[in-house]
Every structure is written in C-alpha cells, then in structure tokens.
C-alpha cells in the first residue's frame, strides 16, 4: 500500500460511523448505500462516499443492479482483515552525499529579512522565520530546526564574510558526520527560500 492509499484508508477508519458500517458490511451478504445509510442513520451521500472510497481501495466489491428505472450499486466485503503496511524506505534521503555538495561554499544572503531565533543558551538557532510574497499575499513561514541544524546555521558565515564549505562550517560547529543528510536538507531549503547563497 502506498502512502496515499494508506492515508485514504486511515481517513475512512477515523470516521465516527466507520465501525457501524463495517459491522453491516461484515454481516450482510451485500448492501446498498441507501440501506446502510438508513441503518446507521447517516446521509445517503455520506454513506455512498465512504463505500466508494473502500471500493477504490479494493476492500469492497460492487455490483450494479437494476430495480425499476434506477440502477444502483450493492457492495460486498472482499476481505476479512484490514492491515496498513507502508514502506518508509523511499522517504529516506540518506542517499550518499557527494563531495561536491559538501564542498559547496555558502553564506547568509544579504538583506534577506529572515528572523533567526536563538536558543536560550545562545549557542544554536532554534528556528528561522521567513516572509514570502508581497502585500496581502505576504505569508510567514517558520522552520523549526533540529539541534545539529541549529548549530550549523549558528556558524553560517555572515553576508559580508567569506563563504565557507558545508564541511568547514560543520567542523566549526562540531557537528557529527551522521548529521550530514539533515544538514544538506536544511541547506537546500534555505537556498530555496533565498536565505543562503552559494558560490
């Protein structure tokens, strides 16, 4: 199951009426949205959406039946058990960081207007607030930093200082090499927001 499907199923399961509808689906050989909705006392459209979502996820089977003028669907439970299994491996950005990326010379960009909030102990940055857009569309984006990221930004060269490589800054900030992926990630984000410039 991919993440989107899992999220959809999670959303279905979180509904107040989900347990009652599953009980009906498990009890009945097949059931229509109108029957299920009237039984659980919820709107037919709400029931229809819920059953369609489960059909889309492959949990239900459906059959179109014709009684009089209007065709409608009857739903049948296909499975006896539900399980959510998501592979988180693809989310990891722990791809090998190349030497070129670590040698990238960076420093804070001039006149960015970002606000750096320091920790109580004044030895790392705890968050960065960046403003984007103009006028009414101006929005504030606050990025909370992990401790290694905060230490890294604390040692980032000032706008008028000589740029330093990521490796040099990490050395100054005494950051362990295991934190390289998250450092590279925050550098990318900061470059994207125009807080950091690379040379």
């Amino acid at each position, binding site marked *: 199951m991919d993440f989107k499907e899992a999220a959809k199923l999670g959303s279905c399961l979180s509904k107040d009426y989900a347990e009652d509808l599953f009980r009906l689906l498990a009890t009945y050989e097949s059931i229509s949205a109108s029957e299920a909705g009237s039984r659980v006392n919820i709107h037919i459209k709400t029931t229809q959406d819920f059953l369609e979502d489960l059909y889309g996820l492959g949990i239900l089977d459906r059959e179109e039946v014709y009684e009089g003028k209007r065709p409608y669907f009857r739903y049948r439970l296909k499975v006896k058990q539900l399980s959510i299994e998501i592979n988180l491996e693809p989310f990891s950005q722990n791809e090998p960081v190349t030497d070129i990326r670590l040698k990238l010379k960076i420093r804070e960009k*001039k006149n960015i207007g970002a606000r750096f909030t320091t920790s109580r*102990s*004044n*030895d790392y940055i705890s968050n960065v607030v960046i403003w984007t857009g103009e006028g009414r569309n101006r929005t504030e984006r606050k990025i909370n930093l992990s401790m290694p990221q905060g230490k890294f*930004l*604390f040692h980032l060269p*000032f*706008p008028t200082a000589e740029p330093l490589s990521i490796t040099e800054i990490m050395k100054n900030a005494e950051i362990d090499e295991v934190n390289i992926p998250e450092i590279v990630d925050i550098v990318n984000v900061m470059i994207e927001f125009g807080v950091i410039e690379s040379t």
Partner: protein
Amino acid sequence: MYYPRKLKRDFRITGFIPAIICISIGALIWIFIGQREGVYSVSGFFILYAAFSLWIFIRTRNQSYLAASVWQLFFGLWLTTRFSYPLIPGIKSELLALLFFLFIASTIWLFYLVFTRRAKWKGREVFELASMSIETQSDGFTERPHPAGKTVYSGSELKGFAEFLRKNLVAMPYFEVNQIVFVPVKMEDEFGYIFSPEKFKQNRSWIAFDFIGNVTVNISKKDYIGYKEELSFDQLCENLGKLFIEFMNYYRKGEAERILYKLNELGLGLTY
C-alpha cells in the same frame, strides 16, 4: 594618540533631565512662594536624589554613584543652613563647619571620579574600540549572533570579570544558568538599564561567555546604525568578541586596569 571616531555623536541630555527638573521646580517655588521655600525644595530634591544615587550604587557597585549620593546628601543639608532661619533651629556652628567640610570633601571626591572617568558608562568606548580598523561594507547586517571563539577561564574568574565590568560601568552582566551575558551601556542609556534591566537587554548588543569557554556576540540594529558608516558586520562582531576575550585575558593575568586604560585612552567626552 588620535583615534578616528566611527560612532555618530549623541546629543541627548537624559542624564541632566532630573537636575533640570529639580532646579526648575525650585525656581518656580522661589518665584511664586518665596526664596526660602525655593531653596528648601531644591534641598529636599537633592536629598531624595541622594537616595536614588545610593540605589544605583547598590545595583552597579560603582564608586562614583556612592560619591554622588554623599555629595547630594551634603549639598542638600548644606542648603538648609543657608538662611538666618535654618530648617533645624539651634544648630551648632561646629556642626555647620563640619557639614561644610564634608560637602567640600565629597565635591573633591566626586570631581576626581568624574574627571578620571570612573563615573562614565563606557558603552561608546566599547563600540569605538570594536570598530577600529574595520573597512566599510554595505548590506552586511544580520540579526544572528556570531560565535566569536573560545577562551579559557574558570567559573569564578568569569564571575569576578563580570563584577569588574559592572563596577567600572564597562558592560552590565546578566547572570544566566549556563552563561553570563554582558550588555555594554552607553552614556544617556543608563537610566533605561537602571529602571528596567530586563527590558533594557532586549534588542541590545551583547557578549555572552558560557561556563565552558564559548564566547558569542550579538550586535543589535540600534547599535549598528549608531555608526556613521556601514561597517563590515562580520568583522565588527569578530572584533567585539576579540575585544572582550582580550579583556578577559587581562583580568585573568591580574592586569584588569589595562581594560580601563584602553577604554579611557580613546579620550571620549565625559558626558557622552
């Protein structure tokens, strides 16, 4: 030795405002009520001001505020004896002579401290020294603090250093759990610090020494625009950090007087 000034001149007269108010009220009382009442009111103000100076002395441990307090007290008392109908009737002439002597002695003491710059808040000197030999460079300001390096000292040395800087009005220390933060206070800003130290610290420049030897510097926008020109911001932060590390080294070697010598050598005015 001549040092070019990098800070803008400060024409504020905050320090004189209490004295101006006090004398103005005394003058009005003199005009509308009478000469004797006018002088007595000024005398009362000076005695109250003596209590205020004593309070500042307790906060800063700076000798000049004790001297000011003593002088204001004796001046206030001396004023009450200036008429043929003194406030305290039947006062002995020996006591009056003693009072006059103490007034003159406290005046000499106070003048000595003022002219030897012991009474001067030395924030301007700190920022002038930090800005020496820095080139101009625009658009360098950032609100981030700057890690200024490491140095070696013990916890007790740091606390002693903090007391020294406070006593000599170089920078006011804020004692925190894992560090001591020093905030240089310029002349005319001192009342802001005295009345509300916590509020004063906000948006000010500071130099922090933690208990494991790290030194961090932050220069506020207010202080940065206090310079005539846009100076290279990273160099300025670095210099300020180095300056305080140098001060700490002097203190550790028992040569703390050199700190005052360096600051006084700039020859800035006594009132700004």
